[in-house]
């Protein structure tokens, strides 16, 4: 699905990623954990194509394409989706209008015809149930006046609508109460299939009680320093990150 090799990247002269390696296959869920400032959100931003970051070296292959050569929208057309840590408000643009535009742009890139209004609305009804999103939110302006929980649920709703191959969830659990967390996790689990993959970026183990990862990676100082299974996440929860830091320095 995606393979990241020796990725180095900087912003405003400061190197954030320092040789990151990661391989994700179809059907897998990977969790990336790490202390503040380790480079978790940087990784998400670079995968999605934010231009502020400068790639110093390394390569990223996504579905056989050189990801770093592609524009943000081309990456989306190939099936890369980022659930934003801070979803953006777009006043006056309804959620459905936004999504229909997005879906048709993606279809157009694949040489497919635009979706019919009927099929689209049926899809909205079906997918909004997955995240228990009130249908009125679908016709409201994108994220405008949404509560923190609604914004995050809306991200997962968009993910359901766009049906990506690879979804990157950037701190989707931040600011969520336990009920919202459960709904978001249920949504992600429902969408999981043998053909897609998910990278869950999180600070806390809490989300992983609901979205069970196949692999847990610890990102520290711009590199993945430890990889394990769900037990690793529990250990981090219990012991914090200090032992990782020490281990890394010793190593």
């Amino acid at each position, binding site marked *: 699905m995606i393979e990241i090799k020796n990725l180095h990247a900087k912003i405003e002269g400061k190197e954030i990623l320092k040789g990151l390696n990661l391989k994700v296959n179809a059907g897998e869920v990977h969790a990336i954990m790490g202390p503040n400032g380790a480079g978790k959100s940087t990784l998400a931003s670079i995968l999605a194509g934010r231009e502020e970051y400068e790639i110093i070296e390394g390569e990223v292959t996504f579905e056989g394409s050189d990801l770093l050569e592609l*524009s943000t*929208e081309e990456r*989306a*057309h190939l099936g890369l989706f980022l659930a*934003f840590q801070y979803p953006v408000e777009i006043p006056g*643009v309804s959620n459905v*209008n936004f999504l229909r535009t*997005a*879906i048709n742009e993606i279809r157009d890139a694949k040489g497919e015809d635009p979706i019919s209004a009927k099929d689209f609305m049926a899809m909205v009804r079906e997918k909004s149930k997955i995240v228990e999103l009130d249908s009125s939110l679908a016709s409201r302006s994108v994220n405008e006046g949404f509560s923190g929980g609604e914004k995050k649920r809306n991200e997962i709703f968009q993910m359901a609508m766009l049906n990506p191959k690879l979804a990157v969830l950037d701190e989707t659990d931040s600011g969520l109460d336990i009920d919202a967390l459960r709904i978001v996790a249920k949504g992600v689990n429902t969408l999981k299939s043998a053909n897609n993959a998910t990278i869950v970026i999180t600070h806390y183990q809490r989300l992983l009680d609901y979205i069970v990862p196949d692999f847990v990676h610890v990102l520290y100082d711009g590199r993945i320093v430890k990889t394990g299974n769900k037990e690793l996440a529990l250990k981090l929860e219990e012991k914090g990150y200090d032992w990782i830091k020490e281990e890394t320095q010793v190593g």
Partner: protein
Amino acid sequence: MAQYTENELAKDLDKQDYKFGFVTDVETDKIPEGLNEDIIRLISSKKNEPSWLLEYRLKSFEIWKSMAEPNWAHVRYKKPDFQKIIYYAAPTQTKKYESWDDVDPEMKETMAKLGISLEEQKKLTGVAVDFVMDSVSVATSFKSKLKELGIIFCSFSEAVQEYPELVKEHMGTVVPNTDNFYAALNSAVFTDGSFCYIPKGVRCPMELSTYFRINAGGTGQFERTLVIADEGSYVSYLEGCTAPQRDENQLHAAVVELKAMNDAEIKYSTVQNWYPGDENGLGGIFNFVTKRGICETNAKISWTQVETGSAVTWKYPSCILKGDGSIGEFYSVAVTNNYQQADTGTKMIHLGKRTKSTIISKGISAGNSENSYRGLVQIQKNAHGARNFSQCDSLLMTDHCGAHTFPYIECKNPSAQIEHEATTSKIGEDQLFYCKQRGISEEKAISLIVNGYCKEVLNQLPMEFAVEAQKLLAISLEGSVG
């Protein structure tokens, strides 16, 4: 569910240049350039006008000569040389068309290019169109159907001939020839325009629409529009404007007068797309227009404008809320790009009790343009319980454009309530990135965001016009984020 016109935009975005910049090769009857009494007499005689109108023109000319060109607007331009303008240019084939088939094919093609093929419109849309090319009105459709209801919708010249008493009674009562420099000029030299009268209690069953086009070089366009909605009537009136691409600046100085009698309602919508000049600021239309309406008791006038064109715009559609309980509304989107300058807004003059006004202004500045909102809310002594709400938003697309707001409030009645809100924002990189991450191209993302920003205003437009306006916004702003 809303129309997803964004999807249609892609085709139009290929042609980001001014797509109305063609010149139609129609023979025109021009008079010599320059302005003096003889020219005015010539215009009047060409139009076979009654003597009272000639006198009105000459009086206006005297007034104009005593006036100075206004300087207070936040715009800079080379003042027009009024002796270098041709004040009358008409397609030579000006005889009345008996039927649509008689209209010059070239002219029909012009209209087709403008996307207002009357033939189609007749069948499909139910919009009655009066088309004013250069100075003369060439075709009005649907006239007979309207006539059955007693509605008069015709060119101004025709109204002068056919309904002189109505014209004489109302012309200049809302915008007097002493009002301002350009209104005085228009009153002296106006050549045509549109006239509309809705009788008592009649609800006009279709949108009435006028298209203005400046075609001949070196000419100015000075049209007058007079809309009278008699007691308890309703009319929705649309106006669209285009001009060919020329290196010179052409002057457009129109006067629009609206009269809403007791309990009447007039909805007046404009999509103004005069040639804005090229990307270096060369050429383009100077659009100096006086638009004003009077509301009698419980009457309502609503102005909606989408302004994307003209090199310099100077325009303040206003409402005089004379009657008790009358309502004035102003919804505006003004887009400036490259070196365009716009100074536009409204005046709401509250005279009657419990009068209400709403002002929603959305300015969008791109390139090196300057975009100003200038508005006056005036509450007079007797306007007990008057209310106003104003919202003026500015959206900046680049770092080198300007957005300015000049709101004036004068309140002479302590029971009045006035609210004013204003915001200025730059189009968000975060918003663009969010759209792109969802697979939406930058151009389409800008169009989505801008249309969302203007939604409150676009919602006021009749459907076909709203679609047209959305496309215009996208074309005007193509490639403008920076």
